[in-house]
């Protein structure tokens, strides 16, 4: 459960992501594909080489969606409803939550590499909770 303190930390960190959506998103995806090659199976139609326009574009999309989640942190279910439908009925990232967890880990590694010391244990905890909550909403309609 996200406390008021968690939400504040998440908003603060998100301010540092502003302006870097495409970079952070692309890096998160690249790290995910490199560290967890099984995730590439969801993108057979993409050029996954470093610097790929498709990966950059998709990374930006993903981070913008996370931005929406941050803005609607008190109502994730509603804010992410469309995306939830998409993941459940079209994309069916499988098993529910697991692959999303790998993206969550990859995104946190990006934040950690860019924020260094500022990615404190408290911020780490808040973000891990937040990304778990997002993943849970996206997996809500799986069955």
């Amino acid at each position, binding site marked *: 459960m996200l406390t008021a303190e968690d939400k504040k930390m998440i908003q603060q960190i998100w301010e540092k992501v502003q302006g870097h959506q495409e970079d952070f998103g692309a890096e998160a995806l690249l*790290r995910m594909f490199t560290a967890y090659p099984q995730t590439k199976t969801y993108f057979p139609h993409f050029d996954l080489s470093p610097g790929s326009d498709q990966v950059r574009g998709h990374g930006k999309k993903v981070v913008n969606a996370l931005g929406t989640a941050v803005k609607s942190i008190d109502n994730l279910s509603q804010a992410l409803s469309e995306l939830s439908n998409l993941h459940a009925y079209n994309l069916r990232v499988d098993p529910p939550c697991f692959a999303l967890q790998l993206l969550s880990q990859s995104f946190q*590694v990006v934040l*950690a*590499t860019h924020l*260094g010391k500022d*990615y404190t*244990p*408290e911020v*780490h*905890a808040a973000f891990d909770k937040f990304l778990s909550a997002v993943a849970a909403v996206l997996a809500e309609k799986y069955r």
Partner: protein
Amino acid sequence: MVHWTAEEKQLISSIWSKVNVEECGAEALARLLIVYPWTQRFFASFGNLSSPTAISGNPMVRAHGKKVLTSFGEAIKNLDNIKTTYTKLSELHCDKLHVDPENFRLLGDILIIVLAAHFTRDFTPACHFAWQKLVNVVAHALARKYH
């Protein structure tokens, strides 16, 4: 037996050579207890774990973190024989400590984030891959003797 490429071995040892085992171990264990608070169930005797500050400053947490990461170093010294290296520890975690092996995976993830925050840009995607492989192998070896 796990197969390590020369590059993976190099990425692992080059990061490891720069790790302060005491600091990094303390940090990793503290974060485990902070980010996944249910893991505190294994450390009831450690005293004050009431807040992130308390956990990070707790001398028993720090000491135990150092112990855990030092043991990790054994895996790195014996990359080609991690299974045997952890036989006894695996039995210990099952028979005496009663730790759900899922927790090894959690600690592995935490360690990766600690390394990422510490090494920033130098923790490249290739590094991340090699270390992810290592933490997976360690977690697997620790779970191997469970019954």
